[in-house]
């Protein structure tokens, strides 16, 4: 028969731990967490510095406010759910069989670690690694290992640090624990107090038949629990892998740098979690709840999936700087989509191209300088309308493709074509005609004498739509009154009978 082995990770004061996990600035400050509806809020969780300051569970807000230097935070179910997911995820690295055993303000789970010795070493080593893993995720937990499920659970809930209970010593390990450790739903504690039963050792020493005669059949389970001999049917859960972090602020935040302080920690957590699954972050979605019941959402998509924290933080900073929230921020949620880690194998003779992650940051900075829609690659539209194009986001085409020979790939004209320089928007000009040909024109600054005019070149289209065009183009060589000459493109809009200087040849 296989002997099972269980490890229990127990994170006490979980509401406070969940809030402080992302708020590293408050980690060593006295913090209490209030729960309930105002004005009947009471302290539901607190950290050690707050306890040393004199705070205790059940205090009202007024009492808590009288303690100087105490940080008062509101309980956040979303933050706790995110932290709980992190705890389960950390535990899942050590065993796929987990059972959640949450108790009031504590978050705990029991792992079935049977047969993991060859992977993680003896139970004590596993317990240390589990505790370190949780600590790196920002959670402090006590860990207990036992062959009995409930023994591991009760010992972890009442003892700090790491405890490994040897097989057969369960009753001894539980002997000194108070009866509260049983966490019973019923209330037999008064009876036990009258009998003078205060510890689990006292309960375990009672004769079973007499106990059942007085307290009923459920007393057998209590006694076995106190002896560390209650059998348990393991009910494993399967924690969902969701990359999501949430943080609510006690006061509305207006400064971007304050948001980035939290954002950096969130990205750090998300990247670490993705990396443990051999994944990267393919996209980041920033959601904020703003003052005035408004919402804010932006999506960041790096060119390649990555776990580079500094790079992702820079993209987040540039995105928020380019699109700042319209009002103060009440809470921020950062969720990520996992993607395969990028593997780029460049050819030995491939031409040098910008590094994708660096290019992302550069383009974001360029957009901050020139504008969102003014940086990218031009793409010609499928139309005959002169000068029509659209901007698309710039991306290096298939960086993994092997280097191709340049011979005969695309056609380069044997003789260069004359290039146009567009004037955006086109300048209105007054044109003097002779025999329907322009002989001179004048813009805002000076007048030009036309020395040669080629045209007209008539184009029209989209007559069926609301945006038709019907123009007459003239290639013109002109001399100004100051003696300078130019070659330009004059366009006569036939529908509006208007002449415009649309481009210069260069």
């Amino acid at each position, binding site marked *: 028969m296989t002997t099972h082995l269980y490890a229990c990770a127990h994170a006490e004061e979980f509401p406070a731990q969940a809030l402080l996990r992302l708020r590293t600035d408050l980690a060593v400050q006295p913090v209490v967490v209030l729960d309930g509806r105002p004005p009947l809020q009471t302290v539901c969780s607190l950290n050690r510095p707050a306890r040393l300051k004199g705070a205790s569970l059940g205090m009202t807000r007024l009492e808590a406010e009288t303690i100087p230097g105490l940080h008062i935070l509101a309980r956040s179910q979303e933050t706790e759910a995110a932290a709980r997911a992190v705890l389960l995820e950390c535990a899942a690295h050590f065993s796929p069989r987990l059972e959640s055993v949450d108790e009031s303000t504590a978050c705990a789970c029991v792992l079935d670690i049977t047969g993991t010795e060859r992977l993680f070493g003896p139970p004590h080593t596993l317990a240390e690694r589990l505790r370190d893993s949780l600590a790196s995720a920002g959670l402090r937990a006590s860990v207990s290992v036992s062959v009995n499920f409930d023994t591991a659970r009760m010992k972890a809930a009442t003892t700090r640090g790491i405890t490994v209970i040897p097989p057969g010593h369960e009753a001894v390990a539980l002997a000194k624990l108070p009866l509260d450790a049983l966490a019973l739903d019923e209330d037999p504690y008064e009876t036990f107090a009258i009998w003078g039963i205060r510890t689990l050792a006292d309960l375990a020493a009672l004769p079973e038949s007499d106990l059942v005669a007085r307290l009923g059949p459920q007393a057998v389970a209590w006694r076995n629990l106190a002896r560390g001999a209650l059998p348990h049917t393991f009910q494993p859960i399967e924690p969902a892998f969701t990359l999501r972090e949430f943080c609510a602020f006690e006061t509305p935040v207006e400064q971007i740098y304050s948001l980035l302080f939290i954002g950096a920690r969130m990205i750090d957590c998300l990247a670490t979690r993705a990396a443990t699954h051999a994944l990267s972050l393919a996209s980041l979605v920033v959601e904020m709840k703003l003052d005035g019941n408004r919402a804010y959402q932006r999506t960041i998509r790096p060119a390649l999936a990555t776990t580079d924290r500094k790079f992702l933080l820079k993209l987040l900073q540039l995105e928020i700087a380019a699109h700042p929230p319209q009002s103060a921020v009440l809470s921020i949620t950062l969720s990520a989509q996992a993607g395969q880690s990028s593997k780029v194998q460049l050819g030995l003779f491939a031409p040098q191209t910008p590094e994708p992650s660096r290019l992302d940051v550069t383009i974001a900075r360029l957009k901050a300088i020139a504008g969102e829609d003014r940086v990218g690659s031009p793409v010609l539209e499928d139309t005959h309308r002169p000068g029509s194009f659209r901007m698309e986001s710039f991306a290096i085409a298939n960086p993994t493709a092997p280097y191709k020979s340049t011979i005969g790939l695309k056609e380069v004209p044997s003789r260069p074509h*004359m290039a146009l320089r567009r004037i955006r928007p086109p300048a209105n000009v007054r044109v003097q005609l002779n025999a329907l040909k322009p002989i001179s024109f004048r813009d805002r600054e000076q007048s030009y004498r036309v020395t040669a005019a080629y045209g007209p070149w008539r184009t029209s289209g989209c007559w069926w739509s609301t945006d038709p065009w019907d123009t007459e183009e003239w290639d013109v060589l002109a001399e100004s009154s100051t003696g300078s*000459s*130019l070659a330009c493109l004059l366009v006569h809009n036939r529908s509006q009978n208007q002449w415009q200087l649309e481009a210069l040849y260069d």
Partner: protein
Amino acid sequence: MPSAAALRLQIEHSLERRFPAALTPVPRTIRETAPTGIPQVDHLLEGGLPIGAISEITGPMSSGRTSLALAFLARRTQEDRVCAWVDAHDAFDSESAAANGVALGQLLWVRCKAPNPTAKPWARLDQALSATDLLLQAGGFAAIVLDLASTAPEHGCRIPLATWFRFRQAADRTRCSLLVLAQQPLAQSSAAVVLECTREDCSRQPEESPSQTVLTGFTYQVSSGRQRFTPYLAGQRKPPASTWSTTTTAQRDARA
């Protein structure tokens, strides 16, 4: 009395063990170049525009500066290299670029804009310089065109020399050809090559061919105003500074 050549030979011979070729300038490093695709210009530049240096293409309006830059970009993008066009006055015409063979997908176009209609003229210039700086620092771009062709010379001259020096260093470090289109030379000693473009008259007048509706037979003249990194053979005296000139012909593509 011995001639200067004989004296020089004598001095060099006597100092040969301590200073090889004491009176002969050391051979300069020959810069790697990239062809522009216009044979006359490549011949003038002895290979093409330098890689990892600043090249200035100057001249008045309609002198072929943009056509020359597009021809160069066409070559670079055809080799699957990534290029950028920093457009201070939003004058880039993508149709002309495509007609010249530029792979638009390989081109990053930065369209600077004035923050507001009443902004000072150098607001665009500031944006263009900042954008060029970022692109040079990012690295990986084979060529960057800083288009200041529509910028008035009095504004362009206000760009500090330290900026050009920084661009030169960055271009050298990232092996990027930085092309500056302007009306007058701006980069001063930081430029490796300065090309001066001028326009010659159109070869055919419309009166000669009345049915002609598009401009053709345009001729540009390109001369090299300044060229560093000239190939130099050891043992020869430094040649006097000279000016080359050549002509190149371009034509308006059919608009059908």
